[in-house]
């Protein structure tokens, strides 16, 4: 068995210990195991391959230097996400992407009651492959302010808990929950345009 094959079966915890003791191959194995998650996170948060590749590189370089300080209180991937999201916020700031301010405040939560809300027709699965809807989802998530987008992606797509996100981003749990809620309401409002239009033209 080659050395690289042997590394592939080692538990993450042991790899981290080895990497802390200057075992470079162990660190590279950690990179290999986690790079796809960080790269895909970068694509979602920053929206293009170049920035995602830069984010990936910066994250692992930071992780390399910070590894001696990693105490294993959280999962290694959570720790990496913390570094990656911080880097993503820096990139967003540089690009003048708003982090917390919504461009349009006029979504449902701010409107007067009672609201007239219609359910969307049919099984949502039937719409999954609709190109128009896909583009609208992408455009709408992208329109979220940076920190809301990040929290939405971490919670509803990556499956992190509100507690984990709170530690990752240094926010209180209620603040995380409130941002998840506002993000979902914002996206619901955007997606309802697609479904509303379908009801009107009678394509149920």
């Amino acid at each position: 068995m080659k050395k690289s094959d042997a590394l592939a079966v080692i538990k993450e915890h042991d790899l981290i210990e080895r990497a802390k003791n200057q075992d470079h191959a162990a660190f590279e194995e950690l990179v290999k195991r986690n790079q796809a998650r960080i790269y895909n996170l970068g694509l979602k948060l920053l929206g293009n391959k170049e920035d995602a590749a830069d984010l990936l590189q910066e994250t692992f370089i930071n992780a390399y230097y910070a590894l001696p300080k990693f105490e294993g209180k959280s999962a290694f991937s959570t720790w990496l996400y913390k570094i990656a999201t911080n880097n993503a916020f820096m990139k967003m700031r540089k690009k003048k992407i708003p982090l917390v301010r919504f461009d349009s405040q006029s979504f449902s939560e701010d409107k007067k009651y009672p609201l007239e809300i219609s359910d969307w027709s049919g099984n949502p699965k039937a719409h999954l492959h609709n190109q128009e809807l896909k583009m609208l989802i992408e455009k709408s998530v992208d329109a979220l302010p940076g920190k809301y987008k990040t929290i939405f992606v971490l919670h509803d797509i990556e499956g992190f808990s509100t507690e984990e996100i709170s530690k990752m981003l240094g926010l209180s749990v209620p603040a995380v929950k409130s941002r998840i809620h506002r993000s979902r309401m914002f996206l619901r409002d955007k997606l309802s345009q697609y479904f509303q239009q379908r009801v009107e033209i009678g394509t149920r």
Partner: protein
Amino acid sequence: MITCKKCLELISVYIDNDLDKSIIENLEKHLAQCKNCMAMLHTVEKTIFLSSRYYKNKSYKVPKRVSARLLYQVRIRYKKP
């Protein structure tokens, strides 16, 4: 009694199953009577379902070039602490 406004505020934590039992009971009573809030609940659930499925289906491999550059950038740092 739960108002529509309160119901709307609680929809996300309700979906995430993060509410006290007593509040859940009241909320469900309201939902059962209020068509609007029920529609809101369903459409928020569909929003989460559609967007999470969209991104889950859209997962990329790290391009070889990018991965190689990453390893190179890490390796050149080994000697200098």
